[in-house]
């Protein structure tokens, strides 16, 4: 092995350490009792690892007045996640199919409008959206936050599916129409079966995106349905007295775990989703 190769591996190993360290200290500290953290360092290996801090973080950590643990946020996030993902991915698939395969008049204009809409920062439309949501009676409610996730997911979801369906040969649709199939039958019987890959990519993108959302949950979900990220920040950043680092880090890890598992399980699909979501067409 040449000197250059060795240098290359040393640099890569250093980079890997840089990427691993935040996760490592969170995992290690969450497994330690508090006196070990006081006496030692968060970079040290746990001497007597245990899950006591995890149990406390899950079931009895305090956010302000209530001490029911981060599980409250977990179930809120779960209830927000399922309908938001199902509905926003379905909406994206149908929109993308209608835009790319049927090319109705104005399709290009709608596409451009959606693409630019994806770049508008939430902060620009937050206040008017709050007004609209409270006027229709959905502000601070579960259906309200789900509706918000669907609306803010529309641009990216539609564009991902549009790009996929635009890459299919036109003959597919023409042949089906000669056979007398209509809009919905073609979608169900021809388009959906060949869309499995792109559906997986879209679902991964939405699951991680919605689970990790903080701002929309903070503003639109209300106290009762505050998602896990909002609750986590409350637990950690509003604590009085001595910081219980092990409980805080266990709560952090529990919040990070679902998207982390999705990432590990999905591998290359995840990368495709992230780049598709980022590059937007």
């Amino acid at each position, binding site marked *: 092995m040449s000197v250059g190769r060795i240098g290359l591996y040393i640099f890569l190993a250093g980079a890997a350490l840089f990427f691993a360290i935040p996760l490592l200290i969170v995992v290690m500290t969450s497994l330690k009792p508090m006196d070990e953290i006081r006496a030692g360092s*968060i970079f040290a290996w746990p001497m007597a690892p245990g899950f006591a801090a995890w149990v406390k973080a899950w079931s009895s950590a305090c956010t302000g007045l209530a001490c029911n643990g981060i599980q409250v946020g977990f179930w809120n996030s779960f209830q927000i996640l399922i309908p938001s993902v199902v509905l926003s991915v379905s909406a994206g698939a149908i929109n993308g199919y209608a835009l790319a395969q049927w090319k109705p008049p104005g399709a290009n204009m709608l596409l451009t409008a959606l693409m630019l809409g994806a770049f508008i920062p939430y902060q620009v*439309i937050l206040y008017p959206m709050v007004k609209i949501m409270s006027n229709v009676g959905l502000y601070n409610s579960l259906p309200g936050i789900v509706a918000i996730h669907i609306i803010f997911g529309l641009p990216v979801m539609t564009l991902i599916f549009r790009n996929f369906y635009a890459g299919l040969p036109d003959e597919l649709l023409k042949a089906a129409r000669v056979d007398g199939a209509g*809009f919905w039958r073609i979608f169900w019987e021809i388009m959906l079966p060949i869309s499995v890959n792109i559906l997986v990519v879209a679902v991964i993108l939405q699951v991680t995106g919605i689970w990790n959302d903080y701002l929309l949950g903070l503003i639109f979900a209300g106290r009762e349905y505050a998602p896990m990220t909002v609750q*986590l920040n409350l637990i950690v950043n509003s604590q009085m007295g001595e910081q219980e680092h092990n409980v805080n880090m266990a709560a*952090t890890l529990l919040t990070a775990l679902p998207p982390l598992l999705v990432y590990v399980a999905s591998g290359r699909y995840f990368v495709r989703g*992230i780049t598709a979501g980022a590059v937007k067409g």
Partner: protein
Amino acid sequence: MRSLAARLVLSPTALITLVCFYGCAVWTAYISLTRSSFFPNYEFSGIAQYTRLFSTERWNVAYANMFIFGVLLVAGALALGIILALMIDRNVRGEGFFRTIMLYPLAMSFIVTGLAWQWVLSPSIGVQHFVRDLGFPDFTFDWVARQDRAIYTLVFAGVWHQAGLIMAIMLAGLRGVDRDIWKATRIEGIPVWRVYLGIVLPMLRPLVVTCVVLLSVAVVKSYDLVVAMTGGGPGFASDLPGKFVVEFSFERANIGQASAAAVVMLGSIFAALAPYFYIEMRRKAT
């Protein structure tokens, strides 16, 4: 008639796009030109909100921070991402391992990222504490708690979160380079690093521009990272426009100032997108 179903299906999306994205943006822009403060007040006042905004110290700090954070994050993530992509492109062993570890931060929320880095950099339990315990009692690294340095600590966390994305995009580009170029340059005896610098990277310039645009847009939108990591503090030393707008909209309830600040954010996004439009237009012209 052929596309009636398609039109029906798309009309809710068109309506939502029109009302929720453009209608609301126009609404915010309009509020920013009125005398609104606690309540919206639709009496026109010209650019008074903007002149007041840019004479508010907190806003000026937040706005300047966006540029400090932005320049360093774009440069840092781009440099690290490209170097990592080049290295992985040299057929390293354990590529899957390195890719996995470099990309997992993208699955983490900014809240989790901010909290984790807050602990790593915390003077009382993090790096400073660790190095002092190693036998350097005078070692000091307390940037996260320092008024003049807190904004720089956000860059560590931001680079950590985004470098993997740049690596993935650039690596895909490197893998797409024509193999004949490598064959030809090897026959000519040109050193590998010169092929990368002189031929391959210039070929990937559009991808680099895409990365710069993506990172810049992310910078303007930054919000949760600073909330979790420094809370905008100490004081408001590490505040960012995204946090300024949310706080002035909902906690301090000054909707006029919040709207003006939001419009400045929108303008910044357009500025960040400009290189992209420029390239698109040049591509269409040729």
